């Protein structure tokens, strides 16, 4: 079976089914992936939001605790006896106050530095860091704000370390409400980092981090990142730093696609960001889609096998008919398609079989007819040939080969045939020209011509060209030689004397007539010599008719010997001969001939004196003795009788005519 999709019906059915069903599986898998992805996204956003909200609350609580610490220490300091303004001088915190600060810092690891600042000018009066004492903090916001009341200074890069720092401050007032000093804590962000870092149930890739307003990481769940690269930049960070809170899908600073929730916390000038990688968040959606895809694929393959079986069953009758049709096309007409079903396919097979049966009969009939036509052609006595319009010999039957004495191989074309059967170029050209004009006609005439057979004899042929449509013609040729020969014989017998072979009276008159016509046109003379053998009757009686016949034959031969080739010697009947001498220049030229004839017929020694006993010869000439044949014959006959009456064996010329000869 041919499995090429373009050539196999079954392959086409199965492949189309597979393409369509796989497309449906892909669509279902994609749709389920998209829908579950959307649901998962919402769920993850909710988790991230809850987590970040929790962390923000923790952060606020932590700051609140530090503010309570601040307030507590402020109250403690205000109650210190050394923490009183001496009259006329600035406040100078005593060693007790300094000890209190140091103890408090030691107890509170969140605090980096505790500062007590002068109520004006921001001079550092006391600090847990000795080097700070004596310097000024007048230009710091925490100082300005701390003079007014409890304040939280949002996160900023510390000028000393460039690390982010959070400062809380408050005023210390005496009992009268007079400003004694400003108390400030520089807070370490490490506890914030711990809050942020705390495991929050965000999966393997979930993380939360704090970013300050210059997109520096303050704290993150990733210690390694925090240490190595403190700068971060992502869509969530940018949006949060522009002062908005929200959620979205974007690439994080490592280029990983994440789901993120971001919050801007204006109180701290920080952004809190919670992110989870999309790969982890959407993994269940991927698994669902994969499961659907695999199950769908397997189902499609299984169904594909079913479709293969069904389509093969459906296609079997068609394939059987196809196979039978291909055998028929290959020439085997005995093949029949199996009729397996009674549906349309069964009808197709039946119709095919009926058609093949008819075809087979037709083929047999044609074959029989072909044999008949072949026998006719082969056995025909006539010549039959098929030629192309260009003259090429296509077929030549044995009759044709016999007729011209050459095979189709000897004469592959009409031109070659013409070369073989005609001696002169003129004959060849005429033959070819006739054939060409016949080929152009619908009903060409029969052509009869003579040719030279390869045996060297001249023969006759009748030829007819029959157009059969298309580029071919049929030539029918018949051998006319026998007919022509018998025709010639009959004609000769009609015009000649059977005994002597000389022209008879009819032919003689015909020739005389022709000679007279010619003489009239050319102004020539014609002489008519009338000869009658002397004593023939007695010879005949004495020696028998056979001898008489012999005399006549001998006389004919002697007469022929006396004249020119162009002269006519004829036997009118009995012992009467006539000689016509045409084209004479003068009347006088005829007389010697007449005398020669008279002398040749007197030969007493020949045949023991029993053959040539003399002849009476009369001579009449045109135009001197007559203008037509009757007149001339009559005058010559008269002249002969004149000689006969004079004793025979003499020549007499006719008397001149009473009518004058026509003027010249």
């Amino acid at each position, binding site marked *: 079976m041919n499995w090429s999709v373009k050539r196999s019906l079954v392959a086409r059915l199965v492949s189309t089914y597979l*393409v369509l069903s796989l497309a449906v599986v892909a669509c279902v898998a994609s749709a389920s992936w998209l829908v579950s992805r959307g649901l998962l996204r919402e769920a993850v956003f909710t988790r991230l939001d809850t987590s970040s909200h929790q962390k923000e609350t923790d952060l606020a609580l932590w700051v609140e605790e530090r503010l309570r610490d601040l307030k507590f220490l402020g109250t403690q300091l205000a109650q210190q006896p050394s923490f009183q303004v001496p009259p006329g001088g600035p406040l100078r915190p005593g060693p007790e106050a300094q000890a209190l600060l140091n103890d408090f810092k030691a107890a509170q690891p969140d605090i980096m530095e505790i500062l007590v600042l002068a109520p004006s000018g921001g001079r550092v009066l006391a600090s847990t860091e000795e080097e700070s004492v004596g310097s000024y903090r*007048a230009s710091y916001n925490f100082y300005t704000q701390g003079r007014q009341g409890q304040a939280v200074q*949002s996160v900023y*890069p510390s*000028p000393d370390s460039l690390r982010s720092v959070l400062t809380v401050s408050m005023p210390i007032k005496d009992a009268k409400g007079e400003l004694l000093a400003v108390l400030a804590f520089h807070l370490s962000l490490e506890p914030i980092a711990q809050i942020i870092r705390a495991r929050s149930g965000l999966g393997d890739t979930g993380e939360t981090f704090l970013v300050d307003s*210059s997109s520096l990481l303050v704290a993150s769940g990733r210690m390694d990142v925090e240490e190595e690269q403190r700068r971060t930049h992502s869509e969530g960070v940018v949006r949060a730093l522009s002062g908005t809170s929200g959620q979205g899908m974007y690439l994080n600073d490592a280029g990983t696609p994440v789901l993120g929730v971001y919050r801007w916390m204006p109180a701290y000038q920080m952004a809190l960001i919670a992110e989870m990688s999309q790969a982890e968040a959407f993994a269940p959606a991927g698994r669902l889609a994969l499961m659907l895809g695999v199950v769908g694929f397997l189902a499609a393959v299984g169904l594909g096998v079913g479709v293969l079986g069904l389509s093969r069953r459906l296609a079997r009758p068609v394939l059987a008919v196809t196979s039978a049709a291909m055998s028929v096309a290959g020439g085997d007409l005995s093949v029949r398609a199996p009729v397996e079903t009674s549906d349309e396919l069964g009808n197709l097979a039946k119709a095919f079989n009926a058609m093949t049966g008819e075809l087979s009969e037709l083929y047999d009939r044609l074959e029989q007819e072909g044999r008949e036509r072949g026998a006719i052609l082969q056995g025909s006595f006539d010549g039959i040939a098929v030629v192309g319009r260009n003259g090429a010999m296509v077929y030549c039957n044995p009759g044709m080969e016999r007729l011209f004495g050459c095979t189709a191989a000897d004469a592959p074309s009409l031109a070659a045939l013409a070369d073989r059967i005609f001696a002169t170029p003129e004959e060849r050209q005429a033959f070819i020209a006739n054939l060409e004009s016949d080929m152009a006609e619908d009903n060409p005439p029969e052509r009869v011509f003579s040719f030279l057979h390869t045996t060297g004899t001249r023969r006759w042929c009748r030829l007819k060209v029959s157009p059969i449509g298309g580029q071919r013609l049929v030539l029918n040729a018949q051998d006319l030689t026998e007919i022509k020969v018998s025709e010639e014989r009959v004609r000769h017998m009609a015009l000649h004397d059977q005994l002597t072979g000389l022209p008879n009276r009819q032919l003689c008159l015909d020739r005389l007539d022709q000679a007279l016509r010619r003489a009239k046109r050319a102004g020539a003379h014609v002489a008519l010599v009338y000869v009658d053998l002397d004593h023939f009757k007695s010879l005949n009686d004495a020696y028998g008719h056979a001898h008489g016949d012999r005399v006549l034959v001998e006389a004919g031969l002697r007469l022929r010997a006396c004249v020119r080739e162009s002269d006519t010697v004829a036997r009118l009947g009995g012992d009467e001969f006539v000689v016509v001498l045409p084209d004479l220049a003068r009347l006088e030229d005829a007389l010697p001939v007449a005398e020669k004839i008279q002398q040749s017929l007197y030969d007493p020694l020949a045949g023991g004196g029993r053959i040539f006993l003399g002849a009476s010869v009369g001579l009449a000439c045109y135009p001197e003795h007559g203008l037509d044949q009757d007149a001339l014959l009559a005058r010559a006959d008269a002249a002969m009788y004149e000689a006969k009456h004079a004793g025979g064996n003499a020549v007499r010329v006719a008397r001149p005519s009473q009518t004058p000869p026509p003027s010249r």
Partner: protein
Amino acid sequence: MFWPRRRIFCLLGLVCAALLAGCSRAEQKPEEFRIGMIAPISGPVRVTGQLLAQARVAELNAAGGVLIGGSKRKVRLIVVDSGGQIEQAMSAMSRLIEQEHVSAIIGPYYSRTAIPVAAALDSLHVPMLSPSATSSEVTRGRRFAFRVGQVDSDQGRTLARYAYEDLGLRRAAMLYDEADAYSSGLAKYFAADFTNRPGATLAVEPYASGVTDFSAQLARLRASGAQVLFLPNYPEDLSRQLPQARAAGFTGLFLGGDSWDSDHGFHSLPEAQGAVYSTDFSIAAADKKMLEHAQALAARSGAELTNHSAMTLDALELLLAAAEVVGSTDPVSLRSGLANLTNFEGLSGRISFRGGGDPERSVCIMGISGGAQVLRACVPPVRK
């Protein structure tokens, strides 16, 4: 009806192409010369110097930008408010570096904020060019900190010499804000130079920021018999100190530093008349052509041509000149360009940095007369 398979594939191809096209990002813009600016736009002591610089940047960009390293580059000036506070200035600096990726920063204007910012920028290797912060602490020991104005050590010396030599005064008094870096610094240098001169005496009284009553200190200074009272303080304090000094009975000359030029509000006080102070820029001393250009820019942008705006404009032009010289906007290259810039003709005069961050430049001695500023003298730059 089934679709021909070829058409289905064509359709799939189109969908893929559309998805890909949707994913592709917009092309990046050609590189700009990004300059940050930290200015106290809000807060107690405001500065509007950025307006003139912004007008200049707009003018440059309209002309196609600045030719740097063979190609025209647009200039982007990103102004961030410091609110006059150190915390905000530090945050602003951090934002300009980390988020805006600027090549250099103009500002901060006041020494108290400029000092911590300069320290941070020096460690971050980004040049800072303060238009008006004059405290020596801003540039001392730093490679990336520059200023346009005269450093306090020079200014203190100039003022001491002017009082001693040009005015012939020998007894001086000084009231200064010890909590403010500028005030205390200038006071220190004035004192160091003046007291070293033969026959000179100096009475000194400090105070801390936020004080409003200076009578005790002024009474003691009055008692010293000073001929001149040096007040290196800000206008907010000066507007109290001048009347209180006269009230305390001081009749001598009031002498001030360039902080006197940051706000002319108190110049109209009757006690201020006849006072003398030094500053970096004076309209009377400025180059005519440059002045006309600056005035045209100011008129167009609605800005005022003040000391601060002139110095800011010079700071901008200095950065552009340095970038053109080195053909780069890389911060480290810009720093070396600035440090080697000599004889730069600015609106506030000729400026040369000879390797360090403090310029060699001229200073104007101004007098207040009838509420207006009158040029008294021009002190040429002193070659170090």
